[in-house]
Structure formats: C-alpha cells, structure tokens
C-alpha cells in the first residue's frame, strides 16, 4: 500500500508539471503571474520590513507614520495675475523649491529669504522612494498596505462568490424543474442590478468595512451570472456515462451531486474565481475613492486623499500621490485577469494551440 502512495505522489507531481508546462505556453498567463507575484511580494515585504526593524514604524507606518521633510525654500510672493516673466501660469507659482509667503503663518520671513521648512507632500527621495502623502506618510508603504488589502479582499470575495455560484449552479442543473426556474430568475435579477449603485445604497445603510465589502461583493457575484454558466457546465457533466453508471449502481442523488458532478465543475469555478478578483479590486477602489468605505488604508483611499486635498488637478507636479495607486489598481486587476486567461487555456483543451 505504501508503494501506491509513492505512485500517487509521483503521478500528482507529473500532472502538476504538465499543467505548469501548458500554462507556461500562454504568454498572457505568464505576464499575469509575474504581475500578481510582484504585488504578492510587495504585500509580504511590508510586515517583513517592520518585523526585522529595517523600517522604523514611527516613520514608515502607512497610516500613522509621520516623516519630517525639511528642505530649503525660497520665499516668494506670488503675483495676482499671470503670465508674468517668471511664471507662465498660476500653477507654476510657487515652484518646487519656493514657498508662497501667504502660506507662512508662523514665521517672520520676508520675500527673498531662504527658510528651512517642513513640507508635505514631499517628492520622492532616497528616504522615501515614492515620496510622502499630504499627511507625511510614506507612499511606498501605503502601496504595500494597499496590496495586502487588495489580495485579502479580492480572494475572500472571490472564494465566497464562487462557492455560492458553484453550489447553486449545480443544484439548478441537477434538480431542474421549479428549483432551476427559480434560481435562473434570481440570477437574472441580480445580473440586471448595477453593482456600484447598489454598493452606494448599502454603504448608506451600514458602515462598510473590508470584511463587509468582501461578503457583499461575494454574495452579489455568486448569485449573479456565473450561476448560469456553471449550470450549463453541470448539465454537460450530468449526461456523461459515468454519471449514468453511478445511477445504475444505485447511488443516491445527493451522493452523485457531490462526488461526481461537483468535482468536474470545479475547474470552471476556479476560473471564475480568478476573474472575479478583478472586479472586487476595482469595486473597492471606486468605493474608497468616493469615501464610502471604512478602511484605514487602500489604494482607492490614497487617491481619495489626493482629491480631497486638492492635488488631483495639479498635473504631474504631485504625481506620486496619484500614479502609483492608480497604476497598482490597474495592474493588479489586469494581472489577475491575465492569469485567468492563462488558466483558461489549461482547463479548456479547445483553446490550446497544441
């Protein structure tokens, strides 16, 4: 019997190798894996840096850290009308190394003097790779924190959603009749509802924390369109000869449902899971941007802060407040999507090139 276990292990290893080789063939899938892997690394990097003491929590904590950025500034008096010979438009004054005298409330400095001031948000420097935000917190640390949030939220809601839709889809396929009709109508209803406005409404009723959002997204996603697709897959499995064989042998319906049909529907469900992570990450960032989410730090919140403090229309002057967060959302969501495409080729033999 031990020999069996050895053979079983080697078979599993061989099949994992084969699936990996097939996955590697998909360029899209590989790009996706690299992207997702990069962000995973980021989300694990932060606690590592804190635990090992490389980063001082006081300075680098994404929520409560504060970093002083002192710098020499030339005091100027910004004119009322533009353009002048020194400045082309209003946004050019004060320039990077200048400070408008009207914003100095506590100092006796005069125009033309150089003063040593603390200014947030600070541009990227050796100490802070991506600079600091208006509250003096390290942006890079915030990105890493946001990465953790994105992963947790994405995977949690995806798992929940997929669990629900697989169960419902399989039940609909298996029992047919009224059960099927009801589940399909329910699915149509959910499909028809626009998700974001629904989330706005929910946020008005109760305070949305990350967990709440994950549950809501998971449930809505799970009850929606994927039920229909899983049901059609389950229907195909239901008519296969091995299911007939189990019926003839005398298996009960429950037994056949869980031990025969479900495992064969699972690969498709896994695929859905990967795709729904994309939606979850995007939804979270939208909600945070609108300030509807009760969360300490996330990418959407970073952009929210930038907007609230008025930095969004500053163009490239304060790019580190907006670009890293925005690009992270895009890339991670896109990365998961690409992984899903790669997985699709592994699971769906018809899409394979060879």
């Amino acid at each position, binding site marked *: 019997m031990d020999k069996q276990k050895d053979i079983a292990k080697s078979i599993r290893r061989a099949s994992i190798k084969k699936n990996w080789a097939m996955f590697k063939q998909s360029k899209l899938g590989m790009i996706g894996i690299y992207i997702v892997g990069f962000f995973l690394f980021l989300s694990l990097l932060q606690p590592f840096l804190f635990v090992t003491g490389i980063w001082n929590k006081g300075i680098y904590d994404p929520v409560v850290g504060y970093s002083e950025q002192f710098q020499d500034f030339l005091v100027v008096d910004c004119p009322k009308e533009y353009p002048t010979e020194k400045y082309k438009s209003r946004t050019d004054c004060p320039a990077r190394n200048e400070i408008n005298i009207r914003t100095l409330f506590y100092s006796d400095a005069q125009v033309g003097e150089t003063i040593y001031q603390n200014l947030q948000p600070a541009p990227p420097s050796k100490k802070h790779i991506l600079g600091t935000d208006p509250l003096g917190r390290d942006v890079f640390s915030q990105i890493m924190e946001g990465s953790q949030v994105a992963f947790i939220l994405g995977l949690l809601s995806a798992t929940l959603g997929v669990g629900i839709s697989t169960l419902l889809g399989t039940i609909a396929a298996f029992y047919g009749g009224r059960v099927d009709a009801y589940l399909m109508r329910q699915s149509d209803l959910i499909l028809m509802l626009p998700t974001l406005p629904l989330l706005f409404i929910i946020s008005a009723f109760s305070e949305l924390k990350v967990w709440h959002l994950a549950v809501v997204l998971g449930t809505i996603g799970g009850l929606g369109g994927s039920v229909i697709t899983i049901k059609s897959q389950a229907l195909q499995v239901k008519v296969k000869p091995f299911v007939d064989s189990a019926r003839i*042998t005398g298996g009960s319906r429950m037994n056949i449902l869980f031990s025969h049909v479900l495992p064969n529907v699972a690969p498709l469900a896994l695929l859905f899971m990967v795709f729904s992570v994309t939606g979850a990450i995007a939804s979270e960032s939208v909600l945070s941007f609108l300030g509807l989410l009760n969360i300490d730090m996330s990418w959407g919140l970073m952009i929210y802060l930038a907007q609230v403090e008025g930095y969004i229309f500053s163009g490239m002057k304060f790019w580190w407040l907006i670009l890293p967060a925005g690009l992270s959302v895009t890339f991670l969501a896109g990365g998961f999507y690409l992984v899903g495409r790669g997985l699709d080729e592994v699971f769906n033999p018809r899409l394979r090139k060879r």
Partner: protein
Amino acid sequence: MKNNLLEVRNLEKYFEVSSGIFSRNKSIVKAVDGISFDIPFGSSLGLVGQSGCGKTTTARALSLLDPKTSGTVNFYNEETSSMQSIDELEGEELRKFRRNIQMIFQDPYESLNPRWNIKDIILEPLNIHNIGNLKDREEAVYEILKTVGLTPPENYMPRYPHELSGGQRQRVSIARTLIMKPKFVVCDEPTSMLDVSIRISIMDLMLNLAKDLEVSYLYITHDLAVARYMCDRIAVMFNGKIVEIAETEELLSNPIHPYTKRLISSIPIPDPSYKRERYELDFSELDNIIANNSDELPMAEVKSGHYVATHDVKGIL
C-alpha cells in the same frame, strides 16, 4: 434447469416531442414499440440494429436508467424463487435490487469520472451498497484488477483515467461492473471505440467472466460479426420493433425477414475473393408496413427458437 433471468413483454418507450414553442401539438416518437424476449440465466442475447432503431433506448429502460412507458419487465427474484416485475420495487428494495443489474458503456473516455482514481472508481459500488469493511473492499478491488488483467494492481489503483489507454479503461469499467457479481449486464457497444487488435481481448475477457460468474449479457451492437462472437442468440431490431430473433448460427445461415437478409448481405467480408450477394430492399416500403402494423403482433415461430415478426411483408419480397 435453465430458468429465465429476464422476461420482457411488449416493452414500449415513447417520447413526446413538441412541434414548436407555442404549439400545443405534441407528436409521439415511438422509440421502442412493443418488443418481447427472454434471457435465460448465463446466456447472452445480442441486440442488433442500425442507429435509431431503439436498441440504446431498450438498454436504458432495462438498466432502470429511464422509466419505460409501458410493458412488463420481470426479473427472477432469488428470495422468492419467482419472477417479479420491476414495477413493484421501490425505495430501499429497488436500491438493493440494482446490485443485480449493471451496464458497460461504449465510450471508454467518458464512462470513468476523470477526477477519481481507479481504486475509488471500482470501490464505488461496494461503498454504495455497504459491502464488508474497508479492508475487505480494498482486497476485492485488488483481486478484480488481477482478474481483468490489469496487473500489478498496485500500479493501477492510484492512477487516473486519463493515464490509461482505451482498452485499459474498458477493463476498469468491466472490473467496476462485475465486482458486485451482478446477474445481468447490459453492454452498449463496449468495443466499437477500441482498436481492432484489442477488441478481441476485451471480448474474450467478458466471455470468460460470464462463464465464471454466470452472468447474462444483453449485448448491443450494430456489428453482426461481433454479435456472432459474443452471443448465443441475436435479435434484430428495426424502427423500434424486433423483426427476427433466433440462435446465432441459425439466424446467420437461415434469415427469413427481408430486413435481416438485407443487413446480413451488407456486411463487408474480409476476403477479397468472396463474392457478396447484395439483397435489395425498399426501405420506405418496409417503413410503411411496420408503421401500419403497430398493434401487438405475435411473432411466428418458424423453427424451434426462431421467431419472425408477422407483419405482411409479401409485398416487398
């Protein structure tokens, strides 16, 4: 003394087909239109016919997969030593009765669950019927793998179906089917998707097991040559009816019904010097005659054990 294991009388299976989404008219497709036959213990009956003749529908009805529309199907009940209709069985009794009937399917690639390993696939019937304890069950799987020629069994038990060839998968199906020692096995063209050189070994295996375990087969095929190799008796089906039924050699040497004659004369012979005489037949005429004779017509016994359907075929002879 050869009892009958199975007695079928006027088995009918009709399907309702609606002619449109909004139409209330439902036309009836008579897939199986009143067939009768017996299968004695330990003997095998071949059911031969072209696609659409109703042989697969018959198989599914007899293996209790799809319910029949009407007719009587009696199985021999060992506890009461008498024939018992399957209509009387339900619930737990029906489940226990299912031990006696099994089915082997045509497609070796679709008849095994791709996510289960071989051991679990063969274990399943024992688990469903709660036979013995875990150790006994694993022993039984081990033994039956040896019997069907998949040795050494340890190499096969942890494997998954996609790692085996078509012939090996059919052996697994046979092992799973026969581990419960059923009395009646329906075989739906189990070798038609296998390579020619492997077919014989599978068929020989089935013949040997039938002898050892006293199993009766209902062997469904479109290939008369295979039916000849596997079966004691052959029934020829056309459009849902049995047109002729006889012992194998008798049927092949002395066919009476025009359809049987046409069928036999269409089969290519693996001998370039053999001159095959084609027996011509107007099929639309035959169709009409059979459709018009949908009452229960008794079959005429032209010779001992050789029955022919008695619709009026003189017009096309």
